[in-house]
Each structure stands twice: as C-alpha cells, then as structure tokens.
C-alpha cells in the first residue's frame, strides 16, 4: 500500500493528543535533562580549575543526556503499543510501516524541538558559554538532529523487544557509547579494536560536530560534517522500517 500523508497525519495527531494527556512522559522528557545538567554544573563548580575548559565537555554531556532519555522513552512507548495490542490493531486497520514510523517521528519532533531548545538555554544560562547566536543556532540544530535520531534508535530497539523489560539490556550499550564516542577521552586514545565501535555510535558524530563548533568552525563551511547525523538517522530509519513487523 502506498503511504498516505493523511494516515501519517492521523498517527501524528493521535500521538500528540496522547502526549497532551501524558504529563509524566512530557515531564520526564523535558525536566529530567534540565535537572541532570544542573547537577553537572554543581560537579563542575566543585572541580573548577583555570586550566579546565568546561565547554568542551559540558555540551557533549548534555547531548548524551538528551540522547539517553529520548532513546529510552521512545523505546518504552513503542513497546507499550506492542504489548497493548494497539500496534497490531493499527496494522490490521490499514496503517503501514512508513506511516506509523513517520507519524511517530513528526509528533515526537515537536517534543524534540522544545527539549533541545530548553537544554541549550539552560546550558547557556548556567555555564555562561558566551557563543554567538549563529554558533548557538548550529548547536541547536545538532542537538535537535540527535534527539530525532535517538527516537529512531529507540524505535529500532522496540522492534526487537516483546515487553518493556526487554528494553533494559540495551541501556548498558547506550552508556558504553558515551565512552566510545570520544566525549570523555579522544577516540584515538581508546584501544584500536574498539575504535570501529565508536563509528557505530551516534554520539561519536554528534561530538565530532560539536567539537568543531566549539573550536569556531561554521557548519556551512563543511557540509559533509553537517550531513553525517541526518545520514546516520536515515540508515537507522530504513532499518526501523524493515524490522517493524506485524506480530504480537
């Protein structure tokens, strides 16, 4: 069946209506990242040193927090669709894979837009980053893309989980990705065999772009750098579409 914009829109509207009623989900998505960033500020203040450039770390850390929370919440919400039988019912009613995935993406992009904006505003406020409006806009774009990409990854994981409990084994992988991505330690300093794994994590590409922006490079000057995250996201979305099956 050819994907229909109207049917995709119906899914997006339904998900947004549910978000409007699910205050807990919205609060976790928006408030938790802000609270964690606040405590990172407290820790960094305690470790303050004139030789320590906080911005190199704090923005990628914030990106990781957004990635982690968005990934887990999306995976759980979609597994819940499966366990409640509504996913199977959607298929039987005539919705197809592409409509379901894009409907969810459109609705959650609204949330990602607000989430990324709030995180960057808080970072700027607490850490007095002092970047120009253009750099902040580019950082926002990166954070926004990561947030959408994290949803896609959450969707992918949900396709392999039969219940909420089966999502949790994937959590250590996301935590491990923070080390592999080069946020804490440059990838070159990691064991050679593990460096290949770094290229599989979305945080590696996010950190790569963010570090260039921190150094003062403009995204517009290096389009390939800008395209890495959407390209990664597209590959994940194709995998989500292929693996989303109509099963109990």
């Amino acid at each position, binding site marked *: 069946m050819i994907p229909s914009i109207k*049917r995709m829109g119906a899914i997006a509207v*339904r998900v947004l209506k549910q978000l409007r*009623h699910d205050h807990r989900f919205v609060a976790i998505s928006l408030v938790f990242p802000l609270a964690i960033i606040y405590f990172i500020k407290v820790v960094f203040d305690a470790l303050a040193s004139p030789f320590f450039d906080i911005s190199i770390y704090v923005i990628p850390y914030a990106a990781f927090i957004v990635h982690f929370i968005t990934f887990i919440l999306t995976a759980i919400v979609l597994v819940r669709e499966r366990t409640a039988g509504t996913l*199977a*019912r959607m*298929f039987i*009613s005539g919705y197809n894979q592409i409509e379901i995935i894009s409907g969810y993406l459109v609705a959650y992009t609204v949330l990602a837009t607000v989430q990324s904006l709030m995180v960057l505003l808080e970072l700027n406020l607490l850490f007095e980053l002092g970047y120009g409006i253009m750099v902040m806009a580019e950082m926002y774009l990166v954070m926004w893309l990561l947030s959408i990409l994290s949803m896609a990854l959450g969707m992918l994981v949900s396709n392999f989980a039969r219940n909420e409990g089966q999502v949790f084994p994937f959590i250590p992988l996301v935590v491990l990705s923070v080390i592999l991505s080069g946020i804490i330690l440059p990838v070159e300093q990691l064991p050679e065999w593990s460096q290949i794994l770094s290229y599989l994590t979305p945080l590696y590409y996010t950190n790569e772009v963010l570090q260039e922006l921190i150094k003062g490079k403009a995204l517009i000057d290096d389009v390939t750098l800008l395209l890495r995250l959407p390209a990664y996201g597209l590959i994940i979305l194709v995998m989500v579409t292929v693996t989303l099956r109509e099963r109990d």
Partner: protein
Amino acid sequence: MRDRTSIHIQNLHKHFGKVQALKGISLAVDSGQIFGLLGPNGAGKTTLIRLLIGAIQPTSGTLSVLSLNPGKQKSALRQQIGYMPQSPALYEDLSPTDNIRFFGRAHQTGKLTQRVDEVLEFVGLSQRAHDPVYKFSGGMKQRVSLACALVHQPKMLFLDEPTSGIDPKLREAFWGHFRELTSAGVAIVVSTHQMDEALYCDKLAILHEGVLLADDTPSKLLWNSRAKIKIWRGPEVSEHEVTNYPAALPGLLQKEGLDNAISRIEVEEDRLETIVLRMINEQIGEKNKGDRK
C-alpha cells in the same frame, strides 16, 4: 446465482516451529451469517482468525476471504473487514471518540464525524463519548473496541472472544448487536469457548488441538447427538437412547405402540457442552490409538 460464500478454507495447515496449530482445516462461511469458532484454549481459534485477516501466513492450504487472498491482498482485504481483538487494544488516555476516529482515519472513512456518532450510538456510549477510556469498565472498553471495528462499515467482522470477561446482561446486548449487523448483510466470524454463546451462532465449527471436529448448525449438532427418551405407561417406564431424536421419535413411538396407556414422554437431550466434550474425548481416544500403532 451469486456466490454467497464469504470465506473458503481448503486443507489449511499452520505450524509454529514444531507446533502444529492447525491441521488440515476446510470450511466455508456465508455472508449475513454468524459463524462461531468453538473450542477450548489452544484449539487454534485465534490462529485461524489471524490467518483470515492476513496477520500470519499459512504453512499450506488455500483460503480466500471476500474473494481475496489474505496473504497476498492484505491491503484490499483490510479495507473491507473489521477486527476486534481479545483484549480491547485501545488508547486508554484518549476518549472513545478519539479512538474510533483514529481507526476510522486508517480506512479514510467518509463523513467520519457522523460515522463516529452512529457507532457510539450503536454501542450505547454516546453519553460517555469524551471521557478517557481508562475510566471505563471492562465491558465498556469492549464496546469501544467493537465501535472501532465497525466505524468503516465492514462487510465482514472478525471477533476474537468479544464477550470474555463481561457480565451476562452485556453479553446478551453484544449478541443483539451482532444479530443486527448480520441482518444488514455483514458476515461475522466469532471465536468463543463459552458453550451457551455458541447457540447464538448460525453455524459452528468445533476445533480441538488444531483439528476441525464438526462444522454444522447448532440445532443439527444437537439433533445428531444422543438423546435419552423415557416413555411411561402408568408406573412402568422404558428407556431408549437414540441419535437425531426428532427423526427417531415417531419410529420409536410406532414400535412402542402409541395408545392411551402412554402417560408421559420425557426427552433428555445432550447439552452442547456434553457433545463437544464427547467429540474431544473421541478425538483424544483415536489419537492415542494411532500413537499405540
């Protein structure tokens, strides 16, 4: 003459790994008919329904629903069928209106607002149209689920144990709804393991461990069963065991000599439950015999 058959199933097999869920089922369902799938848990009722709606593929055999192949013409078929799963499968934080509208949009139903109002009226939930579903009782959720399956005016309805866990009064109302739908020409395939409900069906298929034990009208299944007939002549009573008692009774009375001395005739029919259990036991007996060979 127009073919009134909505479903054709021929020698249908479905295996899940080593488990044989369906073993060579053949049957037909006519339009405007309530067709009951009766059997204990694990009989293969849900598997059969899932095959008919194209949710899973058969291992072998042929099937057609509304002249379409559920495996190959899934999209075309799903525009014409309605499906009500065993659990309500609803968005509980949304209202019945939102749920029905959402599933109606999948079919791109015309005049959707009007249809939503009609199905809400049909299931008697107009007054609660905008309350969140999580506030509803189990029976009310089942009614919302039925409304979702009906919103696009399907030609055929598949209902997987629609009345499980609801009270007898509501159950009767549900069967009333189903009868109204068949009067309008809708064919209904309904699975149940409740014997009393099976009598509401026009035709019954009795399944056990993936085998079709019988496929007939409830009245014929009852007639073809054994009945105990007691004939009193004053204080004396003679007992006879017959099959198909409406046909056997006249002959029996002729043999007995129908005269003024007969003071009372009592017919003790097998109940459907007894018939089904006997069929299942006979099948188990035959299977054990086969295993021993």
